């Protein structure tokens, strides 16, 4: 639970009494690599903080899985859109490596939002962050070349290349595995 405290503490500073209310709402989840964290078509029950491991967010399209993002230590995980709208998930979240997640259920989080003003503020801040991140990625997708997007990824999350299968990274960068492998060779 140290991680929950640390992660929320990056945004807001609850009092000890508030922490005593917040922390017990979080539970530990453990997924072995390859396990589905959230399945397409099911309503996401939890909002997660990643304690360890990498998860892939992908969506099935045209018989393929298109990878749209990764979650790793300290970041959020889960199918957020489904979680907030209470509608069936369109994305799949799967553990790429063995993963430990800390999760809070929908009703618990709503309860905390309505009881504690500071938690509502926390909710607003992460939403702003998620939205800004989404916008930045959209710009990247639309304006950068495949090579530039690869450079950007290397700089931002170099550890990802060690942990995630190349085909997922290629899919994330919207290139074929062949193009990706050519790019890599060119660099080394």
């Amino acid at each position, binding site marked *: 639970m140290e991680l929950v405290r640390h992660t929320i503490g990056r945004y807001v500073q609850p009092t000890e009494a508030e922490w005593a209310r917040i922390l017990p709402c979080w539970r530990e989840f*453990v*997924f*072995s*690599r*390859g*396990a589905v*964290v959230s399945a397409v078509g099911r309503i996401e029950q939890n909002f997660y903080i990643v304690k360890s491991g990498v998860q892939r967010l992908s969506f099935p399209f045209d018989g393929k899985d298109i990878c749209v993002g990764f979650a790793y230590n300290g970041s959020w995980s889960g199918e957020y859109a489904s979680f907030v709208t209470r509608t069936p998930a369109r994305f799949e979240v799967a*553990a790429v490596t063995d993963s430990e997640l800390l999760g809070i259920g929908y009703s618990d989080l709503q309860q905390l939002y309505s009881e504690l003003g500071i938690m509502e503020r926390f909710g607003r801040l992460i939403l702003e962050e998620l939205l800004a991140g989404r916008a930045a990625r959209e710009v990247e997708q639309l304006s950068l070349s495949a090579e530039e997007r690869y450079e950007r990824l290397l700089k931002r999350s170099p550890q990802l290349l060690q942990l995630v299968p190349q085909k997922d990274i290629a899919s994330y960068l919207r290139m074929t595995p062949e193009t990706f492998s050519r790019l890599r060779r060119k660099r080394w």
Partner: protein
Amino acid sequence: MNTALMLDALADKVHRQRARAMEIANLPAEQLLHRPAPGAWNTLEVMEHINLSSSMYVRGLEAVFRRDAAKYRPNTAFKPGYLGNWFTQGLQPGADGGIRWKMRTLKHFDPARQHGASLESIGKFIELCNRLLALLEQAHHTDLNKMRVASSLGPIIRFKAGDALRFPVAHQERHFLQIERMLSLVK
């Protein structure tokens, strides 16, 4: 063999496996995720493997019991089928506690090639034990020689109901030995 003694011995094993699973569910994640070798299964994957295999027998037995169990009078003797006995014996650890046969896992029962394993796999196993225990209870009131269930070894091999109870319990026992060995590596 005496049916009642056999069923009681099986129920006893399942009770112990279930109790142990409840303890294992509370172990730290590092222990549950520990792999003894890079490509090897961790404890959660072994649990999910058990679930994939045992649930086949549990579902098969539930269906055949529902349909036919009431038709037969209780039989105090169970005579294992040739194949059922052979495969169940083959699962038993040797006198030294070592695994006698090495077996290759069928793709169907490999969690990595199905939906993967998680902490929930342990909860599912406990649930499966409850259903097995209910079946072991019902089994006293029918004839386990008379009904047959598809085995996990392919559609051609069908086990007598009694063997379809013995096999998954022995299979679970074998994998619990594996789990204990793995857990002892990371304390």
